[in-house]
Each structure stands twice: as structure tokens, then as C-alpha cells.
């Protein structure tokens, strides 16, 4: 097999960072290459270079042995390099055929391209109706449209940018089937991901990037999850169960027969009862939309229950989020950007949102900006928040660092109950690891954690007990040692065990 595409010593600098530092790699025809790396490792920059959005400062791109300059995305496709972007660039009101015909001239462009779409779709298993409107398609189908666009344009190498991040497990499986078909047909694929299981199951060869440099290249058959994670993060990553047995204290949260309606007035929680003790981690599993949001919002005081009781340290609480925070209930919300932070405010301000009006951040109703700054500096150090300064708007931070801002704000000395919803969703391995450590550290000093997650690995690795929400009803809690992954899966889909 010859090299179809080869990068030699590609270097790209941005003010203050070297995004790609002498990156070399090659892709052969009929091969799936994984490009692995954490957020900020330089994957996106490398894709942008291959797709003609950025020009590298140094280095060469060779296509079938000949040096090329890629001037624009259109030029990239003319050369045979297609990109399937993470977020599809499609006109949602137009049909599949209209989207794929965009750019061609003459009469009835959509009608003329439809047979070609159907032929390619049949050839590679990319089932999609050319007459369907994009707005009616699932994320997986939209992705197929993007793949079709590259194939129609004559792509011989396809770059798939985190293609599974928006897909259900079933959709991901069918994407992998398509990828295998494409490989059979002699196409080269570059698969960008940070999901190790996927990389190990679908690719032939793996190149790992860290801080802009290639830190490893190996055949997939020689790779293990452990080895890849170490290459990516640059240190040892522990995939074993993180939870150590702890001393369980007195009950801190007692929920009995709790029911609540959702925003559309439908019953979202039905007679939920459980008890959570100091130092305990209760994992709540379930498919999104089965009452998790309502449960957390009721406990955080954001949503009124329709019936039932919530006792915190043996007393009833006012349904007021600020008062509950003062009482010791911390909330790490689901939508970290819009619910967890004010994106346009600075890191320092976001860190102060819970207590900006109280001493020491305010004196007699006047904010103390020096105290604000001191508070921010302390938190930034304590939680190793990577931010250019405390005055940077939080929207400019990466997902992991935004999450750390939230943790730093919510987990004051006083936090006795931590409500954590999808706390590591979308974070890379390093950041996930840090969030987990912070949560577990808190349990040692007696805090209880209610952890809502869709990631079974995470739940099993952190929780003492697991409960499952299905259609608003809570199954369990079960001690984590007495329940299997299969049983949880069955409860999640409403099956009897």
C-alpha cells in the first residue's frame, strides 16, 4: 500500500501557542487512521490545514507523492480530501438533494443529482431519502449527507471529525459499518476522536497528538486503552474503580414519596423515595428525559414538587435556591455554559455568583473588587483553572475549565450535598479525571453526592449505590456491588429484572 496523503513537519503557530509542532503523519489508501488527542491537542488545527482553512507556516503536504498547497475547502475536495464536520453545515429547510446539488448550475440541479445519491447510498450503505428535508433528519442521517457530499465531490480521503459525539450507540454502529464499506472500496479515512473504545474497534493505525506534537504512532492491534490514555494525557490514567470504601455517616437527605410535574404539566417524578447519608455517592442512571432534570431541580429549589417530602439534615427547606445553597446544597448543572455560568462575564465574576452580595465580596451592599480578585486568584490556583487571566470572559474557556469554574464556585467549605448532573459530559480524559477526584475528595470530609449521569462507566466507578430513573419512577437504590451493568441497562429501558 502506498501513502495516499502525507504530512511532513507541519507547523502552525497562533499568538502564544504552537498549535501544530512539526507534525508528520501519513495515510495509506484503504486504511482507517485514528487521530487521537485531548481537547486542545491540535487535532482541529491539523484538520483545518488539511481542509484548506489554515495555511501551515512550515512543512509540506504530499498527495500521492506530489507536494500540494491546499487553498480552500473547495480546493481540498477537488484534490480528493473531504471533511465530515462535527456539526453539519447544511441548509435545514432544503432537501437532501438540494443540499448536495448546491454549487452546481443549470436546470433542476436537485433532480439531476438524486440518482447519483441513490447509487452511492446503495453502494456504501448510506441510507437517506434524497427528498427528505434536512430538518427532519436525525444527527446520524445528517452526517450521512455530509459523507455523501464528500463522496459526490470525489473524495478519496475522508476526515471524520468526532463523528460519534452526536450519535446514539446504534447510529454509531451503522456509521462504523459505512466506514468499513468505504475502507473496502479503497478510501482512506481519518477518524478523529477521544473515545478510546471506538478508536480501538474501528481503526487500523493510531497517531496520538499531545500539545501539538505527535507523541506516538502505533498499529491498533498493538494498542491498549491504558497505553493510549497514557500517550494522550502524558501520565498514568487509572481506569479501575476509583471509589474507596468510606465511612457512611448520618442520613443527610431524606426524600419520601416525591412527585413533580415537568414544565409541560406532565407528571415527571412519581413517588420517588430514597435516603442519602454523609460521605455517600448515589448514582442515578437513566436515559435522558426520564425525570433526572426534575429531580435535581426540585432538590436544588428551582422547581416546586407537587407532593412528597424532602428533608435535609432532618428539616424542611424553603424552596429557594439561594437559601438552599447557604444550607449546603451545591448544584453542578447539566448545561454548564448557560445554566452554570454567565458566558460573557469574567471568570472572577462567575466565581463570585453565589456570594457576590455577601461579605467578604461585598461590604454594606457595595462590591469589593479587590476581594473579588483575591477570591478568583485563590480558586484559580486551587482548582488549576487554565485561563489567561481572572478577567477573561468564561465563554473563552474550554469545557473542562468552565466546569472547574463551576466546581470552584459551588463546592465552598460549606457544601454538604453535591447535586452533580453529567459533570464530565464532553470533557477529555484529563479533565474528567480531575472532576472525579474533586468529587470523591469531598466525600472524605462527609459530603454526600447525588450523581446523575448517562455514562455507566462513570456511575459504576464512582458510586456506592445506584438507582435508575425510568418514566419518573426510581428503581433502587442498589448497592453497586450487587447490581450488574446488564441489570442497569434493563431497568433503564423499563424491562423487568
Amino acid at each position, binding site marked *: 500500500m502506498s501513502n495516499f496523503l502525507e504530512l511532513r513537519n507541519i507547523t502552525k503557530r497562533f499568538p502564544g501557542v504552537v498549535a501544530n509542532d512539526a507534525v508528520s503523519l501519513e495515510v495509506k489508501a484503504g486504511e482507517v487512521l485514528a487521530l487521537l488527542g485531548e481537547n486542545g491537542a491540535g487535532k*482541529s488545527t491539523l*484538520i*483545518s490545514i488539511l481542509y484548506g*482553512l489554515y495555511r501551515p507556516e512550515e512543512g509540506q503536504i504530499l498527495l500521492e507523492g506530489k507536494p500540494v498547497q491546499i487553498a*480552500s*475547502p*473547495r*480546493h481540498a475536495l477537488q484534490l480528493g480530501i473531504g471533511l465530515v464536520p462535527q456539526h453539519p*453545515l*447544511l*441548509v*435545514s*429547510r*432544503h432537501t437532501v438533494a*438540494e*443540499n448536495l*446539488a*448546491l*454549487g*452546481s*448550475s*443549470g*436546470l*433542476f*440541479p*436537485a433532480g439531476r443529482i438524486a440518482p447519483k445519491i441513490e447509487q452511492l447510498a446503495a453502494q456504501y450503505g448510506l441510507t437517506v431519502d434524497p427528498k427528505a428535508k434536512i430538518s427532519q433528519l436525525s444527527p446520524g442521517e445528517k452526517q450521512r449527507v455530509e459523507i455523501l457530499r464528500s463522496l459526490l465531490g470525489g473524495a478519496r480521503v475522508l476526515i471524520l471529525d468526532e463523528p460519534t459525539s452526536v450519535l446514539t450507540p446504534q447510529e454509531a454502529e451503522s456509521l462504523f459499518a459505512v466506514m468499513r464499506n468505504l475502507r473496502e472500496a479503497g478510501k482512506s479515512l481519518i477518524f478523529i476522536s477521544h473515545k478510546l473504545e471506538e478508536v480501538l474497534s474501528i481503526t487500523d493505525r493510531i497517531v496520538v497528538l499531545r500539545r501539538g506534537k505527535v507523541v506516538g504512532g502505533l498499529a491498533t492491534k498493538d494498542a491498549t486503552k491504558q497505553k493510549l490514555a497514557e500517550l494522550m494525557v502524558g501520565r498514568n490514567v487509572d481506569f479501575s474503580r476509583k471509589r474507596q470504601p468510606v465511612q457512611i455517616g448520618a442520613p443527610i437527605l431524606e426524600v419520601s414519596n416525591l412527585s413533580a410535574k415537568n414544565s409541560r404539566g406532565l407528571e415527571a417524578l412519581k413517588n420517588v423515595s430514597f435516603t442519602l447519608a454523609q460521605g455517600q455517592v448515589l448514582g442515578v442512571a437513566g436515559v435522558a428525559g426520564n425525570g433526572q432534570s426534575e429531580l435535581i431541580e426540585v432538590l436544588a429549589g428551582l422547581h416546586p414538587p407537587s407532593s412528597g417530602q424532602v428533608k435535609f439534615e432532618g428539616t424542611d427547606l424553603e424552596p429557594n435556591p439561594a437559601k438552599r445553597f447557604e444550607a449546603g446544597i451545591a448544584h453542578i448543572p447539566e448545561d454548564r455554559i448557560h445554566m452554570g455560568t454567565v458566558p460573557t462575564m469574567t471568570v472572577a465574576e462567575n466565581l463570585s455568583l453565589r456570594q457576590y452580595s455577601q461579605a467578604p465580596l461585598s461590604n454594606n451592599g457595595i462590591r469589593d473588587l479587590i476581594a473579588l480578585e483575591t477570591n478568583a486568584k485563590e480558586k484559580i490556583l486551587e482548582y488549576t483553572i487554565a485561563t489567561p487571566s481572572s478577567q477573561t470572559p468564561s465563554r473563552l474557556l474550554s469545557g473542562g475549565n468552565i466546569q472547574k469554574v463551576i466546581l470552584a464556585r459551588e463546592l465552598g467549605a460549606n457544601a454538604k450535598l453535591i447535586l452533580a448532573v453529567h459533570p464530565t459530559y464532553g470533557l477529555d480524559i484529563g479533565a474528567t479525571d480531575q472532576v472525579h477526584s474533586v468529587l470523591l475528595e469531598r466525600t472524605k470530609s462527609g459530603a454526600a453526592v447525588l450523581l446523575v449521569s448517562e455514562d455507566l462507566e462513570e456511575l459504576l466507578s464512582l458510586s456506592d449505590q445506584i438507582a435508575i430513573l425510568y418514566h419518573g419512577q426510581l428503581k433502587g437504590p442498589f448497592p453497586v456491588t450487587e447490581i450488574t451493568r446488564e441489570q442497569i441497562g434493563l431497568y433503564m429501558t423499563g424491562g423487568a429484572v
Partner: protein
Amino acid sequence: MEEILGAILRALSFGTPLLLASLGAIINERSGVVNLGVEGMMILGALTAFAVAYGDGTGNGNLYLAVLAAMAVGALASMIHAFVTITLRANQFVSGLALTMLGLGVAGLLGKRFEGVPLFNQAPELPFTIAAVLLALLLAFVLSATGFGLTLRSVGENPAAADVLGLNVNLIRYGAVAFGGAMAGVAGAFLSIASRPSWTDGMTVGLGWVAVALVIFVGWSPLRAIAGSFFFGLLYYLQFALQGKIGIPSEVFAAMPYILVIVVLALAGARGQQGAAPEALGKPFTRGER
């Protein structure tokens, strides 16, 4: 019977400038740019057409040239809007409003010498009406069945998707805005050399604004614009026909078109017509950096 026929003819006469201007605005907006300057471009077109048709005052001005000049001036005026909103990415609504005020002011100033002057070589109305209807049919076909129409629509819906395929979003938008300006110019020419062959300050009497509203009312469809324009033309005619005949003050009738615009827009909003607006309408395009 004769009265009804007369009413229909007058409705066509009022509807023609509406159709011409709204076809321009539809193409304009389908590319993602709102231009509230229609009224201003229309009156500039009206003045230009009159001035060219007037010639040396003996009625020897070339009428074809008058229409072409009105188109050119309309297109030229629209380029101010295009530059400000497409190249400089300023707010489209503010820029359009400014263009309307500029147009009305400039036309009022430069047109003083034509006030009350008769035009001997009047143009017939019917060719304008027929041309407008044919153009509506043609545009409907171009939008739905040609590659160019698809490109234009895509630029108005999701410019980033067109950009990544190497299509020049800004160039397409400049072209669409120029077309909108030219059509507003023709609509103005129709007023000053055909339907009311004369020049009076403010002679567009809000038709440009009605055309802008009409675009929303007809859901950005050139075909529906035909019916919509003549419906509004009929209302305009009624406003004049009923004045003085019944005991309602004429001011109420004069305000009718605007009141109707509000009512019609409210109705369009209530049945979700606003949802038919091109998705990128009013939004300047910036090439996204990854």
C-alpha cells in the same frame, strides 16, 4: 359592470409598482439581506425616470432610457446599503431606514425644478404590468428549478454552507441587493412616467413600505406576490374611490395602507408566516474560524 372593470384596472395600476418593488425585495431578502430602503430607492428611481423622460421639456426624452436610468440609480443607491451591511456588516435595518430617509430627502431637493411640470411623452402602463407578472413567473422558476436559484436560497438560509463550497456569499448578496434596488427604481419609474406622469415630492406615498411588508405577507414567494400585489392595489384604489363618498374623514383612508400592513403582518405572524423567512435574513455573514 363598467365600474367593476374600472376598479380592476385601477387595482392593477396600483398593484404594478408594488409587484415590481416586492419582486426585487424578495430576491434581495432570499439572499439574506433585508433592505428597508425600498421607499427611498423607489423615489430616486421616480425622479430619475421623470428627469430623463422630460429631456429638454418638449417631450422628446427617451422612455426606454428613462426606465434604464431609474434602474441604474436604484441599483446604485442600493450599493450604499450593500457596502454598509455586507462589507462593513452593519445592522441591516438601521442602514435601510437611513437609505429611505436619504432617498426621500435627496429626491425632494433635486426634484424642485420638476414640481408641477407636465410630461408630454407619457408611457403606457400595461407593458409594465405584463412585464412584472412575467418576471414573477420567471423568478419563481429560477428560484425553484435552477442551480443559480438554489445557490441564492442557500446563501440566504445558511451562508456558511455555501461558503465552504467555494461560493462567493458576499458577491451573491451584492448582486441580489443591486437587483432589489433596480426593481425599486423601475417601480418608481412606473409612477413618474406611466401611472401619474408628473413629479411631486413624496409621490411614492408609502408604496415602498407596503412592498416590504408584502414580501412577508406572501411568504417570500414571487408567485404569491402577484396576487398579493393586486390585492393591495385594490385596497389602494378603494382608499381613493371611497374618499368623500362616505362620512369617514379622508385621513382615515390615507392611513389605510399602513393600518392594513400592520393587520396583515399580524395575521402573517399569527399563522407562522414569519417562519418562512430565510434563516440568515438580517444576519451579516462572517466566515467562521474553526
